């Protein structure tokens, strides 16, 4: 229908007469279709959680977290993987935060956008954010576990690879947070005689902390759930002790789940499902914290 046609028709016809049942039918059908799309996502999530919960319920008790992995399914627990994950993720956070926020501050506050090397850095970060995680595992295998650094299959290696993996997203999230700080804050500070760094350190960064924190928590929770890169870095061994240092052998929760899930014995699948629930609960807690932070942040401006 062209504008002219629509304009020419009398109002009553446009509102009721012209809306043929065919059109209404299509409207309704379309609405059903798109609600179905949302339903697919919801139902799948529900099915997944139900499956994990029903399978893993028998083993959801304190022993699961207290015990070490065992060759005997009745005793098998998650302790070494939980601590391995804590170590990995803790080091990743400690490394990626300063590096990521530092890069974001540089790009937002100091860098001149027209310089070629600045555009190169920005392009790089965008690319790295889209690289499959397993490629970072390959990088770790070639450079960190073996090759120049030769750290072997240790917690340090795993954490370093995860840091590199997570860095682009921390940078991007931090940049958004810094960019969201209103210019008036900066201008006011500079007008009062503060230098650029003083302004950043005392005004911009504190104001952007909730956004940075949200982005960091989300990036860190991604590191917690990663499996592919660490597969190549020796975290799939049978480890029944907690990491004792950066050069210690280790395993992480996603890979212990992988190991238990791959075991033929059905009793191990129960442990795997219970471990999945533990992992999901932790991730949910982290993400909820991030979302709550974000919501509180939104009220400020």
């Amino acid at each position: 229908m062209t504008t002219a046609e629509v304009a020419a028709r009398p109002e009553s016809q446009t509102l009721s007469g012209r809306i043929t049942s065919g059109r209404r039918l299509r409207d309704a059908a379309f609405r059903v279709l798109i609600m179905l799309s949302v339903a697919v996502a919801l139902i799948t999530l529900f099915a997944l959680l139900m499956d994990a919960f029903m399978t893993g319920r028998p083993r959801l008790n304190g022993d699961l977290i207290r015990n070490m992995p065992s060759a005997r399914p009745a005793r098998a627990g998650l302790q070494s993987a939980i601590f391995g994950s804590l170590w990995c993720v803790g080091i990743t956070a400690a490394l990626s935060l300063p590096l990521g926020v530092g890069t974001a501050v540089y790009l937002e506050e100091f860098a001149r956008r027209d310089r070629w090397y600045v555009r190169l850095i920005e392009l790089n970060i965008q690319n790295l954010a889209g690289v499959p995680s397993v490629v970072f595992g390959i990088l770790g295998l070639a450079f960190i576990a073996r090759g120049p650094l030769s750290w072997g299959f240790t917690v340090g290696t795993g954490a370093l690879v995860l840091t590199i993996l997570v860095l682009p997203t921390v940078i991007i999230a931090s940049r958004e947070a810094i960019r969201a700080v209103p210019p008036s804050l900066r201008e006011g500070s500079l007008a009062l005689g503060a230098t650029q760094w003083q302004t950043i350190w005392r005004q911009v960064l504190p104001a952007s902390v909730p956004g940075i924190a949200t982005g960091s928590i989300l990036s860190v929770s991604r590191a917690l759930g990663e499996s592919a890169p660490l597969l190549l870095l020796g975290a799939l061994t049978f480890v029944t002790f907690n990491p004792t240092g950066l050069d210690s052998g280790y395993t992480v929760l996603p890979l212990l789940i992988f190991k238990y899930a791959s075991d033929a014995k059905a009793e191990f699948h129960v442990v795997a499902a219970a471990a999945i629930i533990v992992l999901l609960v932790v991730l949910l807690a982290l993400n909820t914290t991030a979302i709550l932070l974000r919501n509180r942040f939104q009220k400020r401006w």
Partner: protein
Amino acid sequence: MRKQRWVTFVVALTALAIVAAACGGDDGGASDLSGTIKIDGSSTVTPLVALAAEDFQAENSGVKVTVGTSGTGGGFEKFCNGETDFSMASRPIKDVEVAACQAKSIEPLELIVANDGLSVVVNPQNTWAKCLTVEQLKKIWEPGSKVTNWNQVDPSFPNQELTLFGAGSDSGTFDYFTDEINGEEGATRTDYNPSEDDNVTVTGVAGDLGALGYFGLSYLLENATKIRGVEIDGGGGCVAAGTDTVQAGTYKPLGRPLFIYTKTDAAKRPEVKAFAQYYFDNQNAITEEALFVPLTDEQVAEAQAELDKIAAV
């Protein structure tokens, strides 16, 4: 202010992790042994050694043992590179591997740990394949084989698509199977589902009506409800894989010993030697629980003699 709080949070989290790690786990058995033992190798032997490692650590909490499953071949590579203290193997070490070890001044020491009957398995709903001859197995598995249906193996078998699962090329089980069945180590058709982890093979066979797979006996016994063992006719009639037939030597040609290799100088480290000794002292209980075929008394004596050799050095 908020940023400082966040930084504090991260630092506290890491510190908590480290402290918890230091205090984590119960204080196990009193023992002054300490150190790290790294073990890697065959997926067939892993259930046995993992069990031993777990119990050993329970008694000696100062010792940390890691067990990896890279396959017999992969295990030897690491072992001869000095990365591991023990290498699990489901076949004897090859000359070329011994040479590689010696090139790095590593002298491998062979210790037999259990007996095994390499089992051929099918899906429990497979009612027709009760016994297969070595020739039939060869026809299925030889390089370039185009057998894709059970009725090509034996005309009396039904028309059922054949899906193959088996060990990967790094596996000692792979080497042994191809050597015994196809006549040459490493010779096999390549269009099957390989895995270094025998568990994956079990899962594969259990879920597929027309499946055929092979792995060590303990995996068959552990999963007896999900898969069914096939009797093997090595020329002397159909023999089922089992503890008695393997120990008696009648399960031919797929009966074999399982090994763990260590270095003559690694054994000088008290914790390494203690672990090996622990295994042989408790061999019967461990093999029984892990569903492996235990060593005969002569075999134990032989292994002990080897182990004692190191103590003397």
